[in-house]
Each structure stands twice: as structure tokens, then as C-alpha cells.
């Protein structure tokens, strides 16, 4: 069961890196209280139909989980920069198992981020039926697939030095245009937003509060991004390792 053992060490490593842990969980949490706290009595934020505590809980869940799964790429870049990936490639660990461990770690971090924000939301009076919580969590995890692939792509394309800014910039743009910070109105911006996976990540969160989910457009956009980014990640991996 070498794959399980490897994944376990990978998790130990990630959760032991206190700075990473504090920042990736603490940052969305602090932002949430900073933004949603003062607006806790706004019941219909910018015509979105949802209250500020719900709106930002969902938005920051999208933002935080995006970062969580992208950070798997940062770990890949760090291992490449250290030359550790060459060492691992000489062991019987298959590339598939390697990525599985990285993705599992990213998803676990995402799950912890979601739970932390749910608890924070509850402290600001957000109350949702348990079945809805589950639906929404499930959809967020699905909506993260394109970002998982993006993390692996970045991890094989960038070095440990450059991946930080690249990830920061990417999540900032995707979050802004995806409607994490403010509702996207109608018009041109809305068309652009609907073409981004981050928009649908936010919509996934809305399921908990009576949102309509993805519909055909949502599924099409998320699947398309997932396919394109997976192909790109595969290309980057092969280019990096010289494998056929």
C-alpha cells in the first residue's frame, strides 16, 4: 500500500507547514469577518438577493478553495526546484500516484477551508438546512477541478520563485471577475464572468441558499476549462520530464 503511505506523508508535510496553514486558512477567515462583519445586517447585497454574510461566505469559500487546490501546484514547483521530483522518478512511485497524493492534499485543504468558513458564517447568523450544505459542498468540490489542473500546469511550468506571484495574480483576477467580491451585474461583464470557472464556483456555493446551480452553460464552461487545463497540464508534465 505504498500509495497510501506516500499520501499520508504528503499530508503530514502539508499540515506541518504552519505558515502555509495559517495563511491559507487564516486569510479567507480574516477577510470574511472584515467584509461581512460590518455588513451583517445587509439582507440583499447589491441586488443579488442574498444577505452579505451568505454572499461573502460563499465568495470566500470559492476564493479560499481556489487557493487551496492551486497550492498543490506550488508544492510541485518547490519539489521540482529542489530536484526532489528527479529523486522520486527513480522510485517505483507512479506519476499517477504522485498526482493523486497532490490532488488529495489540495482537496483536503479545500475541505478544511470550506468548513472553517461555514462555521464563520454560522457565527454571523447564516443558517442553511444540512442537505443544502452537502449539495453546495459537493458542487464546490466539482467546480474546483479546473483549478486542480491549473495547479499542476503551473507546477510544471513555473519555478518555486515565480509560482507565488502567478498564483496570486490568477486567483485575484478569477475571484474579481467571478463575482467573489461583488455581484456581477448584467451586461458585457456578465458574459465574461459566465465564461470563467470561478463564476461557477461561486454559483455552486449559492446552491445552499436557493441558487439554481449550474445549468447547461455552467456545466459546459466548467467541463471545457477542466479538459483544456488537463490537456495543458499533461503537456507541461511531459515537456518537463521528457516522457512520451
Amino acid at each position, binding site marked *: 500500500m*505504498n500509495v497510501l*503511505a*506516500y499520501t499520508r*506523508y504528503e499530508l503530514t*508535510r502539508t499540515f506541518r507547514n504552519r505558515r502555509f496553514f495559517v495563511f491559507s486558512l487564516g486569510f479567507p477567515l480574516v477577510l470574511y469577518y472584515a467584509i461581512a462583519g460590518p455588513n451583517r445586517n445587509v439582507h440583499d447585497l447589491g441586488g443579488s438577493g442574498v444577505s452579505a454574510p451568505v454572499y461573502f461566505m460563499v465568495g470566500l469559500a470559492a476564493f479560499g478553495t481556489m487557493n487551496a487546490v492551486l497550492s498543490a501546484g506550488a508544492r510541485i514547483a518547490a519539489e521540482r526546484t*529542489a530536484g526532489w521530483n528527479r*529523486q522520486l*522518478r*527513480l*522510485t517505483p512511485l507512479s506519476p499517477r500516484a504522485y498526482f493523486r497524493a497532490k490532488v488529495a492534499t489540495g482537496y483536503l485543504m479545500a475541505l478544511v477551508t470550506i468548513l472553517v468558513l461555514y462555521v464563520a458564517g454560522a457565527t454571523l447568523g447564516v443558517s442553511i438546512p444540512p442537505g443544502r450544505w452537502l449539495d453546495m459542498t459537493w458542487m464546490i468540490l466539482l467546480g474546483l477541478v479546473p483549478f486542480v489542473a491549473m495547479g499542476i500546469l503551473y507546477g510544471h511550468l513555473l519555478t518555486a520563485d515565480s509560482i507565488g506571484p502567478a498564483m496570486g495574480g490568477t486567483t485575484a483576477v478569477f475571484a474579481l471577475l467571478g463575482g467573489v467580491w461583488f455581484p456581477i451585474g448584467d451586461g458585457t461583464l456578465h458574459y465574461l464572468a459566465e465564461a470563467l470557472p470561478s463564476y461557477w464556483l461561486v454559483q455552486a456555493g449559492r446552491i445552499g441558499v436557493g441558487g439554481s446551480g449550474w445549468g447547461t452553460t455552467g456545466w459546459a464552461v466548467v467541463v471545457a476549462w477542466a479538459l483544456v487545463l488537463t490537456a495543458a497540464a499533461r503537456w507541461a508534465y511531459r515537456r518537463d520530464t521528457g516522457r512520451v
Partner: protein
Amino acid sequence: MAATAGIELEGLAKTFRTPQGLVEAVRDLDVSIGRGETVALLGPNGAGKSTTIDMMLGLLRPDRGSASLFGRSPDEAVAAGAVSAMLQTGSLIRDLTVRELVAMVASLYPDPLAVDEVLELTGTARLASQRTQKLSGGETQRVRFAIALVADAELLVLDEPTVAMDVEGRRAFWTTMREVAAGGKTILFATHYLEEADAYADRVVLMARGRVVADGPPNQIKAMVGTRTIRATIPAADLDALAQLPGVTSAERRGEAVMLACTDSDTAIRALLAAQPSAHDIEIGGAGLEEAFVQLTGDETRDPEEAAA
């Protein structure tokens, strides 16, 4: 056949594109290593040792040629856990203790050694509960050695393993290596220290400029490169006669000049001047490995194969 097959490198070639133009790192290299042999890959920096190792292990795709490990492709051998290595560059991943890191690697192999035993063997037992990011350069090197050993793989490859080690670490390293070699593993190590190759290998493959320039028992290689060379211009010299001179092991022509490899250059130069009074432009080359290699392989432009190409 497959059960006894060792390592076969056939016609391996790799050219890199660099800002300075194309560099032929490895040129049609053929090496065959038997199971259980301890072989040193000796050569100066830039000889193509690491490139050869990378191709042999499947980390780098050759332009031409093939590598097979125990009758399998490098990828298959790696997947079966038949290979472990201490590569030339590379640091450790952080946030694990030394014991955890060694145990992690052990968990990936089908039949690893006991972690504690390996920590003891490599002198890293006292570091076992330290985080990997807190280690010194020499300590890191020892842990990398532990990682290579714990696999207990059929083939152990070490690319310049002692480069970052202090004298004591180096001695401890080779003492351990002797024990491992006695266990019947196939070992290939790259080095640019003649003494290491001489002291620890059954066989030395001498590389320069991407080619094998000599392959044989250590004492034979030592006689070739551990000595001096005399270069002299002697028109119409008889190479066979020159090779017979006292102190000379071999004679080669390089255009107008001849090149004499000497075990005793003092005796050889006296004999040369007595036998060939017309010899002029005489140079006696130093004992450095680099020079020895250059003289053994000749200048690019005078390489007969390349002149013909």
C-alpha cells in the same frame, strides 16, 4: 539470458542546444556492466557522466541509442523498484523528519531495508528526529545516501556522491559502500577523483568529451591517467620504437608531434633524447586529470574520426 543481464548502454548519444551552440554531451557511448560489478565512471567535469547516468535511468531521453537495465527498459526497471540513486544535485523536501523521509522512500520500494538499520549505517541516526530543512550540507548529503540505500535496489547509482562531504564524511561513506558492494549489488558511481575510482571500483570506465576513452581495471586506468605525458615534435618517428622506450607506456601520433604516455617521465625523456636527438618543441604534461584527459583524447580538430566526418 534476461536473468543474468546487467546494464547495457548501446550507442547512447545526446546533444544539447546551448546559447553557445550545439554541445554533444554524449557521443555514441557503449558500456556493458555485469550484475554485481562495482564500476566507476571517471572523467573531468563536462565529460558527459551525469548525462549518461540520466539517460541510463530514464530521466533523459537519448537522441540515439538505448539503455537497458537487467533486460528491461529503464522505466520498467524503475517501476519494479530495481533502481535507486543518489543524484548529483538535489536537496530534500521540507517538513518531514529525517526518519520520516527515509521511511517514506522505503515505503515506495517492494523490499526495503529497515529504516533504523540504514540510519545507523549512514551515520544519520542522531539526526533521525530533526526536520530536513535544518540539516547542514554534509548532513543532507548523508541523508540522501540513506535514501538511496534504504531501497535495497539491485542497482545503486551514485553521481559524484562525495562532492559536498568533508573528509570524515567521505571516509565513512566509502566504508559503508564497501559493505554494500560486498552484498552483491550492482554499483555505478561517477567521480572525478582518480583516487576514489582506484580505491573502490572493480572497474573504471574513463570518459572524456562524451566518449569512453578507456575501460579496464583501476590499476590500468591509473597507469594511463595518473602519470605524465611527453609531447615532442619528431618528424618520421617510429611509434613502435618510441613505445618501447623505458618509462613509456604508449605512443601516439598527433600530426607532426608524438604523444608519449609515461609511468616515469624522467627516465623516458632521457631515453627519448638519446634515441631521437632531433626531437624538439618538447612539453611534459602535468599530472592533473583534466590535462591527462585532454592529452588522451586529443584536440577536437585533430580527432581522426571527426576530421574524416
